[in-house]
């Protein structure tokens, strides 16, 4: 079976600094993978390279067999490679519902329509209602996002990604900034993701990582350090070593 997302030898230098050094990673349908590593390991750079925000110096990226290494970010999105943002990056003056409408309209290629009414696009209202319901956001559908609690903004980030019907979903720290008491809601949402979706999660919250991921990939200084199940990673002395000083406590719960 070919991988949905296939990254090979991905490298990036900023001047003399190598922030990504020949990273190779394959992601299959239905996989739940987490990418971890200490601060400055190059996790976000890796996400930016894969999603097309940055251009790699070397390496190839394939999505469902098609090479997408040089495609612009929006073209990758249209092919089903979707990301969420580390810091909720939303349109502050727009309502929750408008966000999801925009995502669905973009996915369906409707945004060139000047004279159609958003309220009358067939099937849109139902689909948006379903997405709102799925994330428990129905009650705040008409609220401007700027007034939303942070945890709800994170849920909306996930709902937005799902609205685009991803094949591969990259979640950049989905629980960052969410109070610990509320992070279970994020986990709940993540556990209800479509089963055939390939998910790559970047996360610092080890609790969330160990609960969610079947496979963990560890990045350190721009290189792939090791990969394995939660138990293997927790037992690996190299992982403990790179985390010493920043986060020595790596244990499955």
């Amino acid at each position: 079976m070919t991988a949905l997302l296939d990254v090979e030898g991905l490298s990036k230098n900023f001047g003399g600094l190598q922030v990504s050094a020949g990273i190779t990673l394959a992601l299959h349908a239905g996989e739940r993978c987490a990418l971890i590593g200490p601060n400055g390991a190059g996790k976000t750079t890796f996400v930016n390279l894969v999603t097309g925000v940055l251009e790699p110096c070397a390496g190839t990226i394939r999505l469902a067999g098609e090479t997408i290494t040089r495609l612009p970010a929006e073209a990758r999105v249209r092919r089903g490679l979707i990301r969420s943002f580390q810091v909720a990056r939303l349109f502050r003056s727009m309502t929750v519902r408008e966000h999801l409408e925009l995502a669905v309209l973009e996915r369906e290629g409707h945004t060139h329509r000047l004279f159609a009414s958003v309220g009358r696009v067939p099937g849109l209202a139902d689909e948006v209602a379903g997405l709102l319901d799925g994330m428990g956001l129905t009650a705040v559908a008409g609220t401007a996002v700027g007034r939303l609690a942070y945890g709800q903004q994170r849920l909306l980030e996930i709902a937005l990604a799902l609205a685009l019907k991803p094949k591969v979903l990259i979640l950049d720290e989905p629980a960052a900034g969410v109070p610990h008491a509320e992070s279970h809601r994020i986990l709940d949402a993540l556990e209800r993701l479509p089963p055939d979706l390939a998910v790559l999660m970047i996360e610092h919250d080890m609790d969330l990582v160990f609960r969610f991921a079947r496979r963990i990939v560890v990045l350190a200084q721009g290189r792939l350090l090791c990969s394995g199940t939660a138990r293997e990673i927790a037992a690996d002395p190299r992982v403990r070593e790179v985390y010493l000083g920043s986060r020595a406590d790596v244990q499955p719960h």
Partner: protein
Amino acid sequence: MSAATNHAATASAPAHGGRASRPQRLRDGAAAPLLAALGLAAFWLFPDDLGLMTRILTAALYVLSLDLVLGYAGIATLGQAAMFGTGAYAAGIAAVHLVADPLVLLAVGGVAGGLIALATGTLILRGRGLTLLMLTIAVAQIVQEVANKARDLTGGSDGLSGIDPGPLLGLFRFDMYGRTSYLFALAVLLAGFLVARRIVRSPFGLACRGVREDPVRVAALGGSPKRLLVAMYAVAGVFAGVAGALSAVTSGIVGLDSLGFSWSAEALVMLVLGGTGRLWGAILGTVAFMTVHHLLAATDPFHWMLFIGLFLMGTVLFLPGGLASLADRFTRGDRP
């Protein structure tokens, strides 16, 4: 029976969906009839000021075009007059040499405004913020200089005169009192307002609002921010071009000041005064600015600029959402 149930369900859906709060929907429904009613009332009440009021309506359509660009797509521009003036000159030149039908002239102006916006927008909308602002100024200056040098066509600094449009729809002559001009301008503004409202509520309009807030996020949803911006710039160019043509048709002359920097800047002042990102704010701001301008200039020809300045400062300081936000307070519409 099932048909009836279905009907009831669709009828109640928007209310349950909460697409817009009730006062907002009421206000939306009332905006166009109110505009028409006020416009007609002014026609009866001030028959001696039809010339000024026609200029106000024309300017309102022009400021509306700026609202599409700035308020709904976040494009900072001080060059909207380039589209207005191009539309005015195109219509004026067509009127002198080719056609007399006023509606055709408006179409000529709209196409010209749209094309110049499309061409220049494709070039300059790579930039953002201050860079873009400078580029829009530069474009307007270039267009103005071209109009100045093309003396044979435009009349240069003397202006283009001899625009004598035929009767509207073949029926209504443009009379010396400006009645036809005024009613024509009112109808065009109304139509422009309704079309603009349709556009800002379309999927395209929603995507443009997204770009205004965060282009990178729109790209992450699969949209092309640059394409959306250029499209909105061109659409607004059509509106500005029609406004320019309307000014040429109703006033009979086109001058270089229709392309000037101060005309671009005044549009911005009027828009901010009325409130950006809400179409009737553009109309309200234009009416307020030009009325106050006219009254002050008549009563105190030496210090009126000072009072205009104070008026603007007061509005910006005490009503940051513009005059339109006053109406929000009264109707308690739920707008962020």
